[in-house]
C-alpha cells in the first residue's frame, strides 16, 4: 500500500518536472520569438536602403510613349552595333536618358557561368549600353542583379563585373538590407514579399537587358522573366505558379526600356544550358518600350508562338503591353 509521504514525494517530483518542462517550452518560444522576422525572408531592413535612402517601393521609370517608335528589331552579329542601331531607331538614347540621370541596368546574372554558355546577359551588350548612357551625361550607371548563388562568382565568371566596371558603371551586388517587402495592388502572389529595390531608390531610369533562353519551367526566359531576379526570399516557391508571377512582376516593374539579346538563343535545356549545343546563332537584337511585345517577338526565335507562353496573355490583359507586336510597326534594320 502506498504511504502518504510517498504520494507527496511523487506529487513533488511531478510538479518539479512539470515546472522544468514549462520552463523549457517557454525558453523555446522565447528563442523562436527572438529569431522571428515579421518582415519575411530577406527583408531585414526597409528603412535604411542603398546609399542611405529610404526605400518605399519601385518607381515608374517609363518615358512617354511615341507611336511608331515602340519596338525595334535589328539583325546582326555584333552586339554593340545592333544595340546601338536599335536604340537609334527608337529616337536615340537622348529620348531615354537625360543629363544627370541615375540609370540602373538589370541584366540576368543568375548563374556563375561564362558568356560562352548564353545563360546570362552578354557583357558586350551591357558595356555598350553603359557607354551610351554616359555619352548622354548620365550622372551614374548602376549594374545590379540579385544573383542568389554566390553573387561575386556570378558577376565575375559571367564577365559582367569586368565589362560594366570598364565602361564606368558601378556594380552592385545584393545584400539583405537591399530588400523591402512590397505588395502589388491587385496581385495575388506579390503580397508583402521581399523585393530587391534599394539599388533603384535613387535612380530615375531602369533598363532591363535579358538573354533569350528556353526555360524548363516557364518555356522561355526573356525580358519579363528577367524581373524574377528582383524577388527575394525563397523565390523558388513561385516556380509552382510561374506564369502568374512573371506577369505580376511585369505589372510591378515599369522600366524605361527593355533589351532582348537574341544574338545567340538558348534553344534547349534552359535556363542553365551548359553546352554550346544548346545555342543557336539567331543574330537579332530587340529594343522595346513594351516588354510584352518584345517577348512576343522573341518567341519566333525560339520557334514558339506567343500562345505557348501563358504569361504574355495575362500581362496583356493587365495592360502591360501587346502580344501583337506587328501592330506596333516594329522598326527594322540590319547592321554588318
Amino acid at each position: 500500500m502506498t504511504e502518504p509521504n510517498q504520494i507527496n514525494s511523487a506529487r513533488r517530483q511531478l510538479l518539479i518536472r512539470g515546472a522544468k518542462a514549462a520552463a523549457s517550452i517557454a525558453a523555446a518560444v522565447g528563442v523562436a520569438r527572438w529569431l522571428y522576422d515579421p518582415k519575411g525572408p530577406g527583408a531585414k531592413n526597409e528603412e535604411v536602403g542603398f546609399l542611405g535612402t529610404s526605400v518605399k517601393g519601385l518607381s515608374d521609370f517609363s518615358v512617354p510613349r511615341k507611336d511608331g517608335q515602340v519596338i525595334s528589331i535589328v539583325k546582326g552579329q555584333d552586339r554593340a552595333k545592333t544595340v546601338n542601331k536599335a536604340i537609334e531607331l527608337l529616337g536615340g538614347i537622348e529620348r531615354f536618358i537625360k543629363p544627370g540621370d541615375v540609370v540602373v541596368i538589370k541584366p540576368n546574372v543568375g548563374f556563375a557561368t561564362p558568356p560562352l554558355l548564353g545563360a546570362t546577359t552578354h557583357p558586350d551588350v551591357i558595356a555598350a549600353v553603359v557607354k551610351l548612357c554616359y555619352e548622354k551625361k548620365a550622372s551614374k550607371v548602376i549594374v545590379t542583379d540579385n544573383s542568389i548563388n554566390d553573387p561575386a562568382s556570378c558577376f565575375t565568371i559571367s564577365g559582367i563585373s569586368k565589362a560594366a566596371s570598364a565602361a564606368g558603371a558601378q556594380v552592385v551586388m545584393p545584400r539583405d538590407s537591399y530588400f523591402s517587402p512590397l505588395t502589388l495592388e491587385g496581385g495575388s502572389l506579390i503580397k508583402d514579399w521581399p523585393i530587391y529595390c534599394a539599388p533603384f531608390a535613387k535612380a530615375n531610369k531602369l533598363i532591363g537587358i535579358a538573354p533569350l533562353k528556353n526555360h524548363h519551367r516557364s518555356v522561355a526566359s526573356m525580358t519579363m522573366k528577367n524581373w524574377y531576379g528582383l524577388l527575394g526570399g525563397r523565390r523558388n516557391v513561385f516556380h509552382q505558379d510561374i506564369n502568374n508571377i512573371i506577369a505580376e512582376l511585369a505589372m510591378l516593374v515599369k522600366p524605361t526600356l527593355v533589351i532582348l539579346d537574341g544574338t545567340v538563343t538558348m534553344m534547349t535545356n534552359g535556363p542553365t544550358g551548359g553546352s554550346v549545343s544548346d545555342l543557336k546563332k539567331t543574330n537579332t537584337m530587340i529594343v522595346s518600350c513594351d516588354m510584352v511585345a518584345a517577348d512576343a517577338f522573341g518567341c519566333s526565335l525560339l520557334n514558339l508562338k506567343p500562345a505557348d507562353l501563358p504569361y504574355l496573355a495575362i500581362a496583356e490583359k493587365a495592360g502591360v503591353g501587346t502580344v501583337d507586336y506587328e501592330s506596333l510597326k516594329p522598326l527594322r534594320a540590319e547592321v554588318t
Partner: protein
Amino acid sequence: MQLFSGRARTLESVVGMLILLVMVATAAGIYIVSQNYNMARFGIASGSGQESGGDFLPVGKAETYNNDNLYEKIDGKAPMYQEAGFVKLTAQRFAAKSNSELGFELYVYDMNNAKNAFSVYSRQKRADATDLNDLGVSAFGYVAGNEICISLGRNYIEMIGSAESNELVDGMEGIAKDLSAKFKPTDNDKIVELGYFPPQGTVAGSWKLQIDNAFGFDGLTDAYSATYKIGDKAVSIFFSKRKNADEAKAIAKNYYDFLITNGGKAVTVDGEVLKSAGASVADFYGSFEMVFSTGVFVGGVHEANDKQAAEKAAEILIGRLKEIND
C-alpha cells in the same frame, strides 16, 4: 521508500548526458561533412591546393545542395530534378594545371537510383551529342561541344567546360572514364526496359525516360521512348509497363481522351494488328499521336509526321511488346 534511489538517479543522469553528447557529435559531424564534401569519392581531390591526380586542380571548396536550396544553383531547372527523385547535388570547379583560364565545373547529382539518373540524363541529351561508348555496362555518356554528361548508377554527372577546347574535352573524357571505372553500375542499376524496344530499327542512344507527366499527360508515368527508323523516316515510339493489363488499357484510353480534349482530332486506324491492340490515332495540330495497350504495356507513337510510318512502327512495337509479355 524513495521513488528513485540516488544510484539510479546518477545512472539516469549519466545516460542522459551520453545521449546528449551523441546528439551533439552527430550534429557536428553532419555540419563538418556538409562543409567539406570529399570529392575524392569521385576520384577527384577537393580543397584548394591539393593535387587532383589528373591535369586539373580543384578551385575553392565543393558546394552541396539539397532539395531546399537546389534552386540557388540551377534556378528554374531545379523542379525537373526534384520531380525525378533528386537527393543531393555536389558541385566543384576545376582549373587546368597548364592554364588556369581553362577549366570546368563538375556537377554530381545523386538521383537516388539509376532510373532517376537516366531519366534526367536522357531528357537533356543534346541532339548533336557524340556517345561515349567505353564507359561500361549500364553507364551512359556523351560529349556535346564543351560539355560531357554521364548517367552512372544513381548519379547523373555533368562536366561543363569553360571553353570549346580539345584539350579541355580530352581531360574531361579522361575523368569520365575514371569515374565510370570507380563507380561501375551494378546489375541492380541495369535499365532492362531499354531492351524492350525492337532491336532492329531503334536508334541506339535515342532512348528517353520520363518518370512522370510524359507528353504533358500526368497519367502517363515511367514512359520510355526512342527514335525508330522506318526507311528514311524517323518516328518516336514509346511504352510504359503497368501493374496489369487493365491499368494499361485504362491509361491508353485516358491518354487518348486527353489528346482529344486538348484539340486532337480522331483519325481512322488501319491494320488488323493495330485494331487488335485497340489503337487510337489522333491528328494533334498537324502531327499524329497513337496509343494502344497490349498486355501490361501501354505504348504508342508520338508526334509523327507520317501516318503510314507511324502505323508501321506501332505494329513492330506491338509485336515486340507481345514477345516481352509472353
